[in-house]
């Protein structure tokens, strides 16, 4: 587990920064995806959009609450299932940000015929 955990520690800095009332943090990450000198940030990719991140941490608290009485109840399972759903949504949102991190690439997806989007084979 050692190497996984090293990875984890590297990336915790990102969401922590993004959520402490810096609502513009993810935007900055999109606009400057290749900021130099942020090897750790680049390695872990963009951080989760704050709305999903808030919902998720809220759902974790609720799941812990729902399971306090009976950890075998349907309510407990449903609550943790919601955590899983939001965790997956958060991960997909991060992937999307990673894919859409280059403004030129984004522009060219929509406007492949323009001069700045021309590619040359020889």
């Amino acid at each position, binding site marked *: *587990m*050692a*190497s*996984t*955990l090293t*990875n*984890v520690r590297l*990336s*915790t800095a*990102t*969401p*922590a920064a993004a*959520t402490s009332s810096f609502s513009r943090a993810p935007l900055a990450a999109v606009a400057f995806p290749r900021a130099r000198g942020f090897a750790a940030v680049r390695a*872990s990719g963009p951080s*989760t959009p704050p*709305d*999903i*991140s808030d*919902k*998720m*941490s*809220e759902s*974790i*608290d609720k*799941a*812990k609450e729902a*399971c306090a009485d009976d*950890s075998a*109840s*349907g*309510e*407990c*399972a*449903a*609550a*943790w*299932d*919601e*955590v*899983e*759903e*939001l*965790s*997956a*949504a*958060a*991960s*997909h*949102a991060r*992937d999307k940000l990673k894919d859409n991190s280059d403004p030129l690439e984004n522009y060219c*997806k929509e406007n492949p015929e323009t001069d700045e989007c021309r590619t040359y084979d020889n």
Partner: protein
Amino acid sequence: MAISSLHATTSLHSPCTTNASFRQNQIIFFTTRSNRRGGTRHGGARTFQVSCSVDKPVVIGLAADSGCGKSTFMRRLTSVFGGAAEPPKGGNPDSNTLISDTTTVICLDDYHSLDRTGRKEKGVTALDPRANDFDLMYEQVKAIKEGKAIDKPIYNHVTGLLDPPELIQPPKIFVIEGLHPMFDERVRDLLDFSIYLDISDEVKFAWKIQRDMAERGHSLESIKASIEARKPDFDAFIDPQKQYADAVIEVLPTQLIPDDNEGKVLRVKLIMKEGVKNFNPVYLFDEGSSITWVPCGRKLTCSYPGIKFSYGPDTYFGHEVSVLEMDGQFDRLDELIYVESHLSNLSTKFYGEVTQQMLKHADFPGSNNGTGLFQTIIGLKIRDLYEQIVAERAGAPTEAAKV
């Protein structure tokens, strides 16, 4: 259910040249479908085919739990078919659908009958069949298979609500991915090919740590609690589907490192059912024999812990299968090429196509191990299956004329 808003939706993506009468046919179809008389409108369906170059789609099912690599698999699959898959243009930004020139991938979460609040009130998970509308799933997959467009609901994973539906046109290859593609017998029977991603508990835990540990609020305890709380429903409703799959990709911890529990080095099995129409399993050296192969030696040097392959016949839930297993990971390009050149029946179009696909997506998870290798191989197999079905259909009228 959101069916009442059927007529209000607009086209998100149309691979066909549409005209007024075509659109009208669609509306007629949907009006009748909601009355459960869709099957009787054959005239409408035929006009549709004439006005649209797309033939009846080949339907593929992919089953796996959440967070077990379905998205990565889909990206590899659509890449093999050519062209990148994108969300529908101009539609709901939270749509779960991916569309490329040949392929449309839909997420079966869109058939949730209970939204997040509804599931919470009733105390059921999304894994529970009671949270899903299999009647609608069947009707719509059947309609697509008949070459008809559908107005599919959208389950919004962020809000947990059902959004207004999106119009899905029949593609060449239609992939349904999610928790239950093989759960309902009627839906299962519509599948031309099915795949199940079977991730062992150890690996699932390791993957979810990688995915979630950076998230605020998550901890090792919360990740473990979530897996454990969902496990009874997973075992009851998701896991049993693997017996129906034509191919299963099983992901296990390595056996090359004694007592390894890091989940970093993986042992991956590709279980391929024998006797499936248009699907010829991949083999190593000699079809039907049992073989263990360590490619690392005099000709090929590998770094620790090396690579080990096995291949042979077996039975899986009473079915005859061929199993190809890879333990370990590729560290260098020549290892991958060496392995590819020793596998047969890969359904590649040129020498090195597997290696090329793996390199093209080296940034995807699993590109250096059996998950990426076997996902790529299954992608090639599905392309082959599709081409065989198309060739068969093209040949069928001549065959009939002879008789």
